[in-house]
């Protein structure tokens, strides 16, 4: 099958590549762009490890073809830090609240939580849990991930998050 030229913006940079129609977006990101922070977990649209932000939507990049992302604006985990390289509130929250153990789900968790907080800057605990329902973590039991997101929401408001990690 002939390869097709695609262009898109990824983490603020214009990128291009040649893809077969069947190339999944996650493979394009990891193999063509060498951005391996986006993980492949289940490959069956369940786990959320491959979540990236596309035109303001959290999308499982294993369930979209790269060719479908032609012309779109994508942010991956590599684009989540502040412009000066310091950690974003969410990244800091995951660090301070021990929101990860093995870390495999973390890129997807952070990218998803980023969109959740864009849409709902002050979510309740239930809204956080519903908001990350498409991301599976097998280590933490979610408790500290929820706290990491609460930490980021508080920090964005300029409020100190007083709870400790479990």
């Amino acid at each position: 099958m002939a390869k097709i030229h695609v262009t898109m913006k990824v983490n603020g940079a214009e990128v291009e590549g040649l893809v077969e129609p069947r190339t999944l977006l996650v493979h394009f990101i990891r193999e063509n762009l060498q951005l391996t922070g986006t993980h492949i977990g289940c490959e069956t649209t369940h786990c959320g490890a491959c979540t990236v932000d596309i035109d303001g939507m959290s999308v499982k990049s294993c369930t979209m073809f790269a060719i479908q992302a032609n012309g779109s604006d994508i942010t991956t985990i590599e684009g989540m830090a502040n412009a000066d390289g310091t950690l974003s509130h969410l990244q800091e929250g995951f660090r301070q609240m021990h929101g990860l153990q093995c870390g495999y789900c973390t890129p997807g968790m952070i990218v998803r939580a980023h969109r959740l907080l864009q849409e709902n800057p002050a979510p309740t605990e239930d809204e956080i849990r519903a908001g990350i329902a498409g991301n599976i973590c097998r280590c933490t039991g979610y408790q500290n991930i929820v706290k990491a997101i609460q930490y980021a929401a508080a920090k964005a408001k300029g409020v100190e998050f007083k709870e400790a990690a479990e």
Partner: protein
Amino acid sequence: MIPGPFGYHRPASVGDAIKLLASLGEEARPLAGGHSLIPMMKLRLATPGHLVDLHGIAGLKGIHRDGNRIAIGAMTTQHELLASDEIRSSLPILQEAAALIADPQVRYRGTIGGNVANGDPGNDMPALMLTLGAAYRLEGPSGAREVMASDFYQGAYFTALEPGEILTSVTIPLPAAGHGYAYEKLKRKVGDYATAAAAVVLTMAGGKVASCAIGLTNLHETPLLAVDAANAVIGTSLDAASLKKAAAAAEAIMSPAADARGPVEYRKHVGGIMVTRALQRAAHRAK
């Protein structure tokens, strides 16, 4: 897991999509949100030779009120349904059901058109469409036609869609003002299809049920309208005996598959419970 090779087409109009499907023939499949088809392609359980991606057709998106009907473009996503003020005020049952479909990421991509057109008995929207008396607009090489949701489903993955036809919109008559509604879905985990689910839309007058429709999800190879169950509660105050009759009438038409969600007896039993709970919650909401 990489799908088999295929040719990719992204038409800008429904007319072009229909022409492409006609010229490419049986090897071509329309691609909506892709969250049923792409996983099947990755497992090589589906190997279409061509995909006609409907994302480039602006006219297939959007929610419009047309008199006392709401028209929803087929490519409108579950996320857009959940964000719509029009749906929140006119058809809140769609939001209650959409929030129970898969997970947030899937809802950004999954479309109402794909959900109702695929013919998967596990999909949630078809039973709602039966309950609400919706009609589907189908467009194909020989023109456009409207088919009632109640006439659309013929078997698991078999529908009234003819080769080359695309479902382009769903039209739903507005339920009566003050109606009560509920969608009760039992599932094992987030993202699972229903073990059993029931949709209810009813109106109450003087403490009694004045009108009622009940739809069932994943309890048969097609979605079901439980007419006898609805008739069993009309004119009643939803007392325990009437609820029991309704659940029994609904269970009588269920024929779920025995699968990892449970044996047939269990799924029918919880199906009856979903009907009971949906009736009670809908009545509680009715004004």
